[in-house]
C-alpha cells in the first residue's frame, strides 16, 4: 500500500512529525538563516555577465569633449533657478529649442493627503520640461529617456547642465535609431509620476496634469542622473524601485562595463568593491552591502527617480555622482563619455531588456545572486510553518494526544464552533481596516482636539490604533461560549499559521526582501507561542518584539548601523515616525503597497497570534 494510505505507516509518519517537530523547526530556521548569510560568500555567487546579444562585446570610442559647456550651462541654470525661485521653465524651453530639440512642457498639480514634513510640501504644483531628439533616419516608434531632477537649493544643477550639453552633442550625430527624450522634472518623484502617467495615458494616483503634447513612442530604457558637484570621485548606482521592483540586470552590467571602460570608480549602496573575499572583513563587507539592498528593497520606497519607470516595464537606473575626499577626481567630460557610451549601446537594442534577471540580489557590482539561489532560504522558513501546522492538525484530529501536553481540562471538548473561530479573525481584520483608513480620514478631528500638526496627527493616530489593537483579546473571549478551550486556540493557531504562510509566500514572490524580513522575525515566534498561564508574559513580550512596528524600528536601526551612521534611541524613534508618515504618503502618491499590506494583512495576522497568547 502507499505511504499515506497505509494506516500503520501513516501513524509512524505522524508520530515522527509530532515527536521531532521542535528539533526540525529549529533546524529549518538555522538552515534558512545560514543559507541567507551564505549568499554573500563569494564562491557561492556568480559573476555578472551581459546576456543581451544586441549589446555585444565591442565598444565604441566616445567623442564627448564638452565638459566645459556643461559647466557653463550649470551656472546659467543655477542663476535662472534663483531668479525664478523654482524651475526656470522659459529658460529651459529656450535653451533646448536652440539646441535643436522639440520642446514641450507639462504642468501638473497634486494635493497630498497631509503635509509632508520632510520635503515641506502640501499642495504641489509644478511643470516638467522635456525635449525630444528625433532619430534622423528612424521611425518614431521607440525612445530612450535621460532625466535630471530640478531640486531645491543648489542640488542637481550639474545634472541639468550635463543633460543640456549631452543633448547638444547628440543632436549632431546621425547614428540614432531611437528618439531620445531629455526630461527635466520638478518635485522629483511627483513630477516623474505625473510625466509617466500622462505619457502612458493612465491615472492611477489622482494627479491632475495638462495633456501631453509630444510623444516619442515606446520607451525602451531610462537613465536618471543626479550630480551636484563639478567634479566627482565616484558614481553610485541606485537600483531599487517602487515596491521593491528591480531593473533588468543587464542595465546594471552595462553601467559597470562603462565605468570600467572610462575608468570611473563605481559603487553600489555607496560601498566600493573589495577583493579579499576569504577574510572576515571582506565577507562582512559584502554581507552588509547585500543587507543594505535587502533593507532598501523591503521598504518599497523608490531610491531614485528611476523607481517609478519600472512599473511601466521600462528598465531604469539612477546614477549619482559622489564627491568625497578622495584625491582622484573625474570631470564632467568623463561623466559625459560614460553616458554617451551607455546610450550608444542602448541604441543598438532591438527589443526591451528581457534576457537577464529581473529578480536578484547584489552583494557587489560584479557578483549577483539570482532568484533560484535565494528562494530556498525563504523556503526553509516557510517549511517551519507547514511543519507546525501539520503538528497541530494531528493534535486536533486525535484528541487524546492533545490532552497529554498542556493542562488537561477534564471535560469533553467539542469542536469549536465556526463563530468562535471566525470572531477573532474578523475583529482583527476590522482593526486592520481601521488602521488603514482612520489615520488619514480623522486628521481633521484630531487637530481640533489636540495641539498637533496634521502629519503628527496621522502618525499618532496610527500608533494609537495599533496599540489599541493589543487590548482587544481581553474583551472578545468572555462574550462567546465555546471559547477558551484547548481545541479553540489550536484551530485558531492552525488557521493563523497557514494564513501567515500564504501571506509571506505571496509577498516573497514579488518582493523577496520584505517577505524575508517579516519571515525571519515573525515565523519562529508564531510557531512557538502557546497560551500557557505561566509564561504568558514571556510569550507576550516575544510577540511584541516581532510585531511589524518593532521590526520597522529595528530595521531602521540596522540600516543606520550599516551605513556607518549610528543613531541613538531617540533619533531612531524620530526616524520611525517619519517612516510611518512616508509610508502612508508613498501609498497615496505613487501606489506603494507596503502600508496597505502591513495594515490590512500582516497586522491582523499578528493580532490573531496575540489573541492566542491571551486565550485563557
Amino acid at each position, binding site marked *: 500500500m502507499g505511504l499515506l494510505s497505509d494506516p500503520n505507516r501513516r501513524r509512524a509518519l505522524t508520530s515522527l512529525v509530532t515527536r521531532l517537530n521542535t528539533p526540525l523547526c529549529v533546524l529549518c530556521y538555522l538552515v534558512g538563516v545560514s543559507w541567507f548569510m551564505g549568499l554573500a560568500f563569494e564562491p557561492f555567487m556568480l559573476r555578472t555577465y551581459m546576456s543581451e546579444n*544586441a549589446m555585444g562585446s565591442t*565598444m*565604441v570610442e566616445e567623442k564627448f569633449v564638452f565638459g566645459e559647456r556643461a559647466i557653463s550651462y550649470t551656472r546659467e541654470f543655477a542663476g535662472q533657478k534663483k531668479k525664478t525661485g523654482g524651475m526656470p521653465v522659459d529658460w529651459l524651453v529656450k535653451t533646448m529649442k536652440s539646441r535643436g530639440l522639440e520642446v514641450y512642457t507639462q504642468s501638473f498639480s497634486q494635493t497630498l493627503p497631509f503635509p509632508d514634513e520632510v520635503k515641506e510640501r502640501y499642495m504641489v504644483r509644478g511643470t516638467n520640461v522635456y525635449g525630444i531628439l528625433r*532619430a534622423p*533616419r528612424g521611425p518614431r516608434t521607440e525612445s530612450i529617456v535621460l532625466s535630471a531632477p530640478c531640486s531645491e537649493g543648489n542640488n542637481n544643477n550639474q545634472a541639468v547642465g550635463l543633460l543640456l550639453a549631452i543633448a547638444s552633442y547628440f543632436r549632431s550625430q546621425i*547614428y540614432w535609431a531611437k528618439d531620445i527624450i531629455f526630461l527635466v522634472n520638478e518635485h522629483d518623484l511627483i513630477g516623474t509620476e505625473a510625466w509617466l502617467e500622462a505619457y502612458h495615458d493612465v491615472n492611477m494616483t489622482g494627479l491632475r496634469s495638462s495633456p501631453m503634447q509630444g510623444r516619442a513612442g515606446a520607451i525602451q530604457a531610462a537613465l536618471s542622473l543626479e550630480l551636484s558637484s563639478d567634479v566627482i570621485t565616484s558614481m553610485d548606482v541606485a537600483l531599487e524601485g517602487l515596491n521593491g521592483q528591480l531593473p533588468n540586470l543587464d542595465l546594471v552590467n552595462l553601467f559597470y562595463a562603462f565605468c570600467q571602460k572610462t575608468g570611473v570608480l563605481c559603487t553600489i549602496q555607496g560601498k566600493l568593491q573589495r577583493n579579499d573575499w576569504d577574510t572576515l572583513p571582506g565577507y562582512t563587507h559584502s554581507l552588509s552591502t547585500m543587507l543594505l539592498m535587502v533593507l532598501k528593497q523591503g521598504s518599497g520606497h523608490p531610491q531614485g527617480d528611476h523607481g517609478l519607470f519600472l512599473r511601466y516595464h521600462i528598465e531604469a537606473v539612477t546614477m549619482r555622482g559622489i564627491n568625497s575626499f578622495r584625491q582622484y577626481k573625474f570631470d564632467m567630460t568623463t561623466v559625459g563619455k560614460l553616458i554617451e557610451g551607455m546610450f550608444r549601446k542602448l541604441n*543598438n537594442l*532591438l527589443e526591451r531588456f528581457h534576457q537577464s534577471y529581473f529578480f536578484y540580489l547584489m552583494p557587489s557590482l560584479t557578483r549577483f545572486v539570482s532568484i533560484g539561489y535565494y528562494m530556498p532560504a525563504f523556503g526553509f522558513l516557510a517549511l517551519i510553518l507547514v511543519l507546525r501546522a501539520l503538528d497541530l492538525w494531528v493534535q486536533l484530529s486525535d484528541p487524546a494526544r492533545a490532552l497529554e501536553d498542556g493542562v488537561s481540562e477534564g471535560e469533553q471538548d467539542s469542536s469549536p464552533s465556526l463563530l468562535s473561530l471566525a470572531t477573532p479573525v474578523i475583529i482583527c481584520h476590522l482593526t486592520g481596516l481601521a488602521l488603514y483608513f482612520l489615520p488619514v480620514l480623522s486628521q481633521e478631528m484630531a487637530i481640533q482636539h489636540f495641539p498637533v500638526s496634521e502629519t503628527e496627527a496621522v502618525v499618532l493616530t496610527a500608533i494609537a490604533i495599533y496599540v489599541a489593537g493589543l487590548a482587544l483579546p481581553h474583551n472578545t473571549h468572555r462574550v462567546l461560549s465555546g471559547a477558551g478551550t484547548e481545541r479553540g486556540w489550536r484551530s485558531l493557531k492552525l488557521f493563523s499559521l497557514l494564513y501567515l504562510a500564504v501571506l509571506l509566500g505571496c509577498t516573497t514572490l514579488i518582493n523577496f526582501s520584505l517577505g524575508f524580513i517579516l519571515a525571519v522575525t515573525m515565523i519562529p515566534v508564531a510557531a512557538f507561542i502557546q497560551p500557557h498561564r505561566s509564561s504568558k508574559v514571556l510569550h507576550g513580550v516575544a510577540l511584541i518584539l516581532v510585531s511589524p512596528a518593532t521590526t520597522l524600528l529595528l530595521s531602521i536601526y540596522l540600516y543606520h548601523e550599516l551605513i556607518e551612521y549610528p543613531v541613538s534611541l531617540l533619533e531612531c524613534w524620530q526616524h520611525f515616525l517619519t517612516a510611518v508618515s512616508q509610508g502612508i504618503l508613498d501609498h497615496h502618491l505613487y501606489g506603494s503597497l507596503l502600508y496597505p499590506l502591513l495594515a490590512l494583512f500582516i497586522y491582523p495576522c499578528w493580532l490573531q497570534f496575540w489573541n492566542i497568547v491571551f486565550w485563557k
Partner: protein
Amino acid sequence: MAARRLLSWYLTVFTLLCLFCYRITVATDEIEVCTSRFWFNYRHVANTLSVYRSVKRLGIPDSHIVLMLADDMACNHRNPKPATVFSHKNMELNVYGDDVEVDYRGYEVTVENFLRVLTGRLPPSTPRSKRLLSDDRSNILIYMTAWWNFYNVILRLLFGQRKLKQLIGENLSSKPIASWNITISVEKRYNELLFIIDTCQGASMYERFYSPNVMALASSQIGEDSLSHQPDLAIGVHLMDRYTFYLLEFLEDIHPASQANMNDLFKVCPKSLCVSTPGHRIDLFQRNPRSVLITDFFGSVRKVEITTETVKLIPNITEKNEKLTEEVMLTEPQKYVQQMPVAEIIHQSIQMCWTQHSNANGHYQKWSQPFKIKYD
C-alpha cells in the same frame, strides 16, 4: 546597297561567332548568401559583399550572380556612415560601392527561396534576376556565411541525409523527404560546383555531400568556432570574419589572367591566422585541384576567337535580304514634315524681351541679341 548587304553579312557572322564563342566558354554562376539579421551581425553582410565585389571585379556580371542579404546594413539607422559597408577598419574599403545589386533581400532570404533558386523551381512570374540561369556547362560558386543553424537545415535537404530532425524555426517535418531529395545534379544544372562556407563548425556542412563534381571549403572544423576579425571603434561592430578577411586578401591578388589554382585557395588562412582550422573536400571532384584555376569559379573569362572562315547556316537568309533591299529601292525617299517653327518663336520672344528691357538698363542690350538657330 552594297554597303547594306555587307553590313548584314557581317552581322550574321558576328552573331554566329558569338554563339560559337559562348559554346566554348564555360559560364560561371554565383550564389552568395548571408542570412544574419540585426546590426550586430554587420560582419556577415560585409563578408558576403566583399566576395561579391571580388567576383564582380574578376568579370562575372550581375545577371549571373544571385546575392541574398538578410538585412540592410548600409541603410541601417545605426550606421554612422550611411550607404556604406566597410570591410577594413578605419574605413579603408567600402564594399557596398555604387553598383551593388541585391536579388533577395530581408525576409526573402529563406530556406525555401534558396532551395528554389538552386533547383530552379520558381514560379513563372519570378524575374530573371532572381533565377539561377545555369545549364549543364556552368560552374557554380556558392558562398555562405552567418550562423550555422540555417545551413544545417538546407544542406541536409539538398545533398544528403534522409532523416531530418525538427528544424529550428522551420517546420518541414511533415513533407516527404524524398520530394526534396532530387539533387540538382540529377537535373543537370551544373558542371562543377565550388562551395565555400564561413561559419562555426563549417566542416559539418560538407561532410554529407554525395553529388559528383562538388568541391567544398569551410572555415572551421566540427567543434571549432569561426572567429571574427577586427572591430571598428567608430562604427562599434566587428567588420569581418577572419576566414573571409584572408580570402578577400587572397582574391585581391587574382586578376582575370591569373594562373593560380585551387591548391593556393586551400592554403588561405592557416591556423595561426584564423585560429580555427579551415578544411576542404575534394574527393567528389573529378579533376585534380591543381589543374583547376581560381578564375574557373571566381571569374568569367570571355574569350573571343576570330576566325576567317564563313559558316553558312540557313541558305534562305541571304535571298530574303536581297528581296528586302530591292523593295527599299522602289519607294521614294521620305522626310519629316516641319512640325513647329521653333526657331521663329524663339526669335520673336527674344525680340519682345529686348524691347522691354532696353529702357531699364543699357547693358541688357548685349544679352538680348537674337540667337540664330540653324536647322539644316
